[in-house]
């Protein structure tokens, strides 16, 4: 396995085992910034990590024979949460629920990736690998 095929190329498939393996360093990197880098630098670092996370989940959905389009939901939720939390911190009344909604949506998709069964044969996204 290599970084590019898990976190850069959204076109292929990633089966459950490699998905879990790739999820661990991704979550650890997110935790690193959440715990040790305070303020906006840490928040923007978290946003950057959303790109490899998106690619990883898109590949997992492909492995299940599904399109990555449902990921538009957590993307929109994270974008809205980031807008309120980072750029409009004074609107905390809206920002806080937006963050919780984004976290919940992301958690749902991660859980789906963790428990969803991949297709055993080739599908329109390629051969099963990993």
């Amino acid at each position, binding site marked *: *396995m*290599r970084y590019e095929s898990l976190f850069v190329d959204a076109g292929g498939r990633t089966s459950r085992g490699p998905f879990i*393996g*790739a999820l661990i360093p991704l979550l650890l990197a997110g935790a*690193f910034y959440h715990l040790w880098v305070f303020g*906006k*630098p840490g928040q923007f670092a978290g946003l950057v990590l959303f790109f490899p996370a998106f690619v990883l989940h898109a590949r997992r959905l492909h492995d299940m024979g599904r399109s990555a389009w449902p990921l538009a939901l957590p993307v929109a939720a994270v974008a809205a949460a980031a807008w309120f939390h980072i750029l409009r911190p004074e609107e905390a009344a809206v920002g806080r629920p937006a963050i919780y909604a984004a976290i919940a949506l992301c958690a749902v998709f991660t859980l789906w990736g963790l428990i969803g069964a991949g297709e055993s044969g080739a599908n329109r996204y390629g051969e099963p*690998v*990993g």
Partner: protein
Amino acid sequence: MQYAVWFVRLVFVAWMVPAGLNHFVPLFPQPLGNQPLSRELFLALIDSRLFTLVKAVELFAGLCALTGFYVPLALLMCMPVAVCVWYWDVPLQGWDSLSAIYGWAVLGFTCLMCLTYIRSYLPMLAPLARPRSLGSSQTPLVGHIVLAARIIFGAWLLANGISHFVTPLLAMPAGHMPLAVQLMTALHNSDLIDVVMAIQLVTGALILAGLFLPLALCVVMPISVCAAYWSVILEREPLGALLGLAAVGLNALLMVACLEHYRGVLVRRPLALGETEARA
């Protein structure tokens, strides 16, 4: 192993992209320094626009690591920036300051990233590398040109280093234009000029002796570029500018002559430690 490598890479990417982008699209306040020397150096870098170059390199390295595009090359370009960040954050801001943690982190993660691509850098670390001719065929004339370039460049660097630390051999330019004077003064006051000269002293000796030639040329290239920037863009004195460009030219010529040792660095998508070609 590969999980640790990916963790390091993700942390590196998540730091470098916003840190570099922040200069071009303001995202968060840029630390200006709270010590006289760190502030003086920072203002000199900002005023001379060298800081824009620093941030462009950070952004480039971050995007390359994010997308897996020429990562070893981007890391090599980022290393002098990481060293300067460390110098600013740690010795200048204070060894026990909060900035020091960031300085160590940036340098540490950049070194770890380089370590994950150590296979790409190994050919560059050859102790007895011999520069080849430019182009496909080795001709005596080109060989002599390369040898002359090596002796001139090596002796020049060595003389600069000796002039600074031992006995004056070459005049050290102080600058006449305001920005050139400001930057040179900040380099002297922060003692960063000592680091620069120490690098010139060591790399000059190595280049003359023909030891670790590809590595020495690579290490001294950022200094050649900054010297050319200082003389051409900031000082604008014809002879100095010519010498600055000549230094970059000689450095580049010798690097091209050692191109086979840099091939590992120039691979578009090399494998990091622990990675295999099998697609996931």
